[in-house]
């Protein structure tokens, strides 16, 4: 106990160890926070549900905070739903059962660039005759622009930005731009101020109703941005943390413990057992690790647990055995082992109680340095398209970004966010590990 406290005291004298420790603690905190606030089932549901869940988010939107570093402020998404604002919905019922339902959605537009897309989502209830709506926009300079008249089905949407007729009528530019332009300005300037979207609806049956929601998609969304399916990247970034940490930790524990036990057995018994284990290690060295993992991923299962198991099994006879063996060779000759043998301690007792505890200090730094390599392995598999199909992970974001050409299109945030987290994880554990190595193995420190 005392030695651990002393070791810790020595450790915090290394600035890199302190930084590493802080980063590791930060990652652990994020993991715990994530698991508590977004339970597993909810995360999976959010990540795997399509447009239904995310229709209010723009595609390929950058994080909100990027506006802080920009002179020209990019727009955020404006979404107005009549359910949330009943005051915007005016109903007048006529004697014959028909009614006129008008929506007036006021919104302020004070950004320097145009919105990405404009869409109105409708829902309606009717028996035989579908309701009819007329949509128009009143600009801050009091012009009224008629957009479209049409009858609506039970569930539908009017994508203003894809309306080719409107585009022609407004002069050939995409509607989301020409609707928000100062008239006759060149280059096109954004007309800032209060807009009013009017939807004049008419129903033709008693009990028939209309509901509308207007979304002006911006170019920014959330603290992490969105991907090609309008999903908020934050969920994958947050949930990637516990997944990466757990995978790295379990794989590192699994491989270093088994390797150590095998190395101890090999050196203690010597003779043909040692020879056999040495040969098996050499065979394992020639086995192509990643192609076999890919084979397992393709043929059997992409579940993260199967891959974890395969990683551990393939690493049991890894190169680490040679390192441990060299240390055990020295330990085997120590007087205290001889004493144990003299009083008749069993082989298992000597291996597990005397030899292995002896090299634990040496193991800890190695084990911590191992963690990032497994975190990156999991990301590597995801980049190859062999990640766990259900889990949102960092590697998967990179894979999606790569597949959608994020680097070519300039959506750098999409690649940089998961990469930054991977880098932080890698740096945190290896900085801590290298410092621990110098504390626990003073032989290296003198150099």
């Amino acid at each position: 106990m005392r030695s651990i406290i002393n070791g810790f005291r020595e450790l915090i004298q290394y600035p890199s160890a302190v930084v590493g420790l802080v980063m590791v603690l930060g990652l652990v905190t994020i993991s715990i926070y994530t698991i508590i606030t977004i339970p597993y089932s909810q995360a999976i549901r959010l990540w795997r549900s399509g447009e239904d869940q995310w229709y209010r988010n723009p595609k390929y939107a950058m994080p909100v905070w990027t506006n802080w570093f920009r002179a020209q402020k990019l727009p955020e998404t404006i979404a107005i739903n009549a359910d949330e604002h009943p005051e915007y919905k005016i109903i007048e019922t006529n004697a014959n059962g028909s009614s006129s339902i008008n929506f007036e959605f006021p919104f302020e537009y004070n950004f320097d660039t145009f919105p990405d897309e404009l869409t109105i989502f409708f829902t309606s209830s009717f028996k035989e005759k579908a309701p009819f709506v007329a949509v128009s926009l009143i600009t801050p300079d009091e012009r009224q622009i008629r957009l479209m008249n049409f009858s609506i089905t039970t569930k539908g949407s009017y994508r203003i930005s894809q309306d080719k007729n409107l585009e022609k009528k407004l002069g050939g530019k995409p509607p989301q731009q020409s609707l928000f332009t100062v008239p006759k300005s060149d280059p096109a300037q954004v007309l800032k101020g209060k807009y009013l979207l009017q939807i004049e609806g008419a129903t033709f049956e008693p009990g028939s109703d209309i509901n509308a929601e207007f979304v002006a998609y911006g170019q920014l969304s959330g603290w992490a941005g969105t991907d090609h399916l309008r999903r908020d990247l934050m969920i994958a970034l947050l949930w990637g943390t516990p997944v990466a940490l757990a995978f790295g930790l379990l794989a590192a524990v699994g491989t270093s413990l088994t390797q150590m036990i095998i190395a101890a057995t090999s050196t203690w018994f010597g003779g043909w057992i040692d020879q056999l284990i040495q040969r098996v290690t050499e065979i394992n060295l020639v086995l192509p690790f990643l192609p076999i993992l890919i084979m397992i991923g393709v043929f059997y299962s992409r579940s993260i647990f199967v891959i974890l198991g395969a990683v551990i099994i393939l690493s049991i006879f890894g190169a680490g055995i040679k390192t441990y063996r060299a240390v055990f060779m020295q330990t085997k000759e120590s007087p205290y082992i001889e004493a144990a043998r003299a009083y008749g301690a069993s082989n298992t007792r000597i291996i597990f109680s005397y030899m292995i505890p002896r090299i634990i200090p040496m193991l800890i730094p190695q084990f911590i340095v191992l963690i990032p390599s497994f975190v990156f392995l999991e990301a590597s598999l995801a980049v190859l398209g062999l990640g766990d199909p259900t889990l949102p992970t960092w590697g998967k974001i990179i894979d999606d970004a790569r597949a959608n050409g994020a680097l070519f299109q300039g959506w750098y945030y999409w690649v940089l966010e998961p990469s930054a987290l991977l880098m932080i994880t890698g740096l945190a554990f290896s900085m801590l590990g290298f410092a621990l190595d110098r504390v626990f193995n003073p032989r290296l420190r003198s150099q």
Partner: protein
Amino acid sequence: MTEANLSLPLGAGLQEEKKAKAGSSAFVRVAKYTGVRILSLSITVLIGLYLTIIIANMGGYVDVIRRAQIREDVMQRMANNPALRIMDPEVKRAKIDEIIAIQEQRYGMDRPFITRSATYLTNAVTLDLGYALKMNSNSGSKSVRNILLERLPPTLLLFASSDIILFFLALFFALVLSRQYGSISDKILITLTPLSSAPGWFYGIFLILIFASVFKILPFGGMVDAPPPPSLILYIVSLFKHMILPVLAMTLSQIFLQVFSWRTFFLIYSSEDYVDMAKAKGLTSREIERKYILRPTLPTIITSFALLLIVTWTGAPILETIFNWPGLGRTLFQAVGFFDTPVIIGETVIYSYLLALTVFLLDFIYALVDPRVKIGGEKSGT
């Protein structure tokens, strides 16, 4: 070869007498050592390949695919045969089943797995890897062997050049820094060492982002410009331009740790008594470095380099995919996408060969530089 060995300076003065005795038999010893290593590595590769086959065949997955492939082939042939089109459906079905049974027997599907696995193993050893389901080589062949052999040269080119660059750069910096222990550059190196925890492809993404997306001075990926330049010189220039980023990515991901660990080796060895003695004799520091520090550490350095090479081989599929390099690794990635089983298994087989060849090559160099092998004293510790 023997002359070359003997012209290399041998360790400390003690070994000088032994050298004369060793002389003629050094070649025999190196040859014998190499022979033993070839034999043991061949057995290792055989076992490795067999394990690969068993993993690929576990649960009979490969068999299912093969059966489906046979059925598909037969159905296709029957459908294309106009003479059979008017045949009674019942009779036709019976005939199809019969042909499938004959075909399965021809491929040995009726024998138990153990005997079949022996056939698979011989096929794998001779690189007779069957036919791809969907992919084909640039020359249009569907044979997995042709596909893989066509993609092998780009992979070898990329990895050999970056490994050689990495080796000499790391050796150079390690020697320089071991001379300046405790200096600022040494401290910077120690601070940078944790950067080696990220694999090459990870740096690849950043390099593409910086040099291809933002500054637009180097290509995003691929091996040569499209269309390929007509003259050889322009072709080489274009190839070189495309190689810069992947080589840089691999070097960045490995060099800091490698320099750090080799520097530590050199430091340990430079505190030996015989180095002090050489200093006392008044030898130049360059001579001390070459004869008394580099020479005894070379075997250890080569062993650690062998492990490094295996790591870089393992990362190859992703690095090549990120850089769109038309090598073995990207083929593996494409095969995963197409679910092309024969190609995936073939890739695994050829990677085992490459790993074994790497280990062998380094063993051979080890035999050349390790005085223990040549002088035949203590057996080397592999």
